[in-house]
C-alpha cells in the first residue's frame, strides 16, 4: 500500500513539474501584435486634400502575463510626407497633385520584439 502511494506521488510531482514548465513558458511566450484595419479618410481623395489615417491593432497576449503591453505605431508613405503627432494610431497625409494610387503603411511594435505591418492604398483623383 505504502509503496503504491509513493509511486503516485512521484507521478504527481512529474506532472506538476511539467505543468509548471508549460505555464511558465506560455507566460513568457510573446504574441505578436496584429493590425486589424488601416483606414484612410477620405479615400478616394482629391489632390491637395488632407487624408486622415487610422490604424487599429491589438495584441493577443490574453492568457499571458504580457497582455496589455503598450503598442507603438509608426507610419510610412510611398510618396510625400506623413505626419503622426505622437507616433500613435493616427496620422495625416496630403494628397499630391499627381493622380494615382499611393500606398501608406502602418507599423505596430510591441515591447517584446513583435511587429506587424499593413498597407492601405489611397486613390488620388
Amino acid at each position: 500500500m505504502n509503496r503504491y502511494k509513493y509511486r503516485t506521488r512521484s507521478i504527481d510531482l512529474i506532472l506538476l513539474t511539467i505543468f509548471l514548465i508549460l505555464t511558465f513558458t506560455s507566460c513568457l511566450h510573446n504574441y505578436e501584435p496584429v493590425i486589424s484595419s488601416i483606414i484612410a479618410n477620405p479615400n478616394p481623395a482629391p489632390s491637395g486634400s488632407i487624408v486622415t489615417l487610422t490604424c487599429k491593432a491589438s495584441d493577443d497576449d490574453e492568457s499571458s502575463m504580457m497582455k496589455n503591453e503598450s503598442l507603438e505605431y509608426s507610419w510610412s508613405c510611398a510618396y510625400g510626407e506623413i505626419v503622426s503627432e505622437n507616433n500613435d494610431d493616427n496620422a495625416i497625409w496630403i494628397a499630391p497633385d499627381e493622380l494615382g494610387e499611393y500606398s501608406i503603411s502602418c507599423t505596430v511594435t510591441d515591447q517584446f520584439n513583435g511587429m506587424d505591418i499593413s498597407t492601405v492604398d489611397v486613390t488620388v483623383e
Partner: protein
Amino acid sequence: MKNGPVEIISLAASDSIARSGDLVVLVCEAQDSDKDKLSYEWQSSSGDISADRDTALWTAPNKSGYYHVTCKAADGVGASDVASVSIRVVGGIISGTVTNAVNGTVLEGVSVSIGESSVMTNDSGEYNFYLALQGGMYQVAALIDSFCPYDGSFEIPEDHSSSLFTFNFSLSPFPEPGEIRMVLNWGSSPNDLDSHLKTPEIEGQTHHISYSSRGSADFAPFATLDVDDTDGYGPETITIKQSFSGTYIYYIYQYSSSGSFQESGGSIQIYNSPTCDGETIQVPVDGSGRYWYVCDIDGESGDITVINQIQNSEPTN
C-alpha cells in the same frame, strides 16, 4: 530564457520604377539573434504577389502610383521585424531625345511639356513622361534660351501595344536675319528620309540642294543642308541663308524602300527670321508615293504656300 529579436537587414526590389504588368523581384534579408528559423510574410495592397520564403515576385498593378510591398519576418515564438519598399508604377513612358536642328547634337536643360506636365531634358538630351499611354494626339511644347519655341504634336495609334513610346524632335536656334529654316523629324521608320530644296534662279541658274549637293552659305545657292539623317527620327535640316526672288520648292524624298510616309509620324517645322514665325506641317495620312511635296516658299516675301501631299513624281517648277 528570453527570445531574441528578429532583424530585417535589407528589403530590396529589382526596380524602383516599373510599368504596369512588369514583374519586380524582391528579396528580404533577415536574421534572428538566436538562430530561430524564420518565416516570411509578403503583402501588397495592390498587384499580385507570389513568394518563396525570402524572395517574392510582384506584378505591377494597372493603375499608376507609388506602391509599397511589405515583408514580415517572424521567428514563430513572438519576435518579428517588418520592412517596406516603395515602387513607382507607371502606365507607360513617353520618352525622347531633343536635338539641335542645325548640327544634331543633344540639348540639355530643355523644358518639355506634354499637356500640363513639364520635365527637363538630361545631359543626354533625353526626357521621360510617365503616363498611362492612350491612343490619341498629344501636344508637345519645348523651350530653351536662344532657340525658337517648339510647338508640335504626335499621335499614339489606338493599337499601340507597347508601354513605351518614343518622340524625338529638334529645336532650331533663332534664325539669323534673312534666314528661313526647315526642320524635319520623324519616327523610327523609314530609316532614311531626305530633304530637298529647289531654288529659283540665283546668279543665272537654279540649284537643287540635298545630301548629294549640300549647298553653301557663302555663295550660290546661299542655302545649306545642315544635317543629313539616315537612321530615323531626324533632324534633317535645310537653311536658306539668303533668299532670292522666285519660288523655292521644298520636298522630302523617301530614300529607304521599306516603310512609308504615312507611318513615319513625320513633322516639319519652318522658322522664319527674325521671330521664328512659320509653319508646323504634319505628314498627310493620304496619298502614296516616295515624294512628300511640302511647300513652296516665295523668296522675296518669305510667304509659305503649304502643299502637303504625297505623290509619285518629283515636284517641279
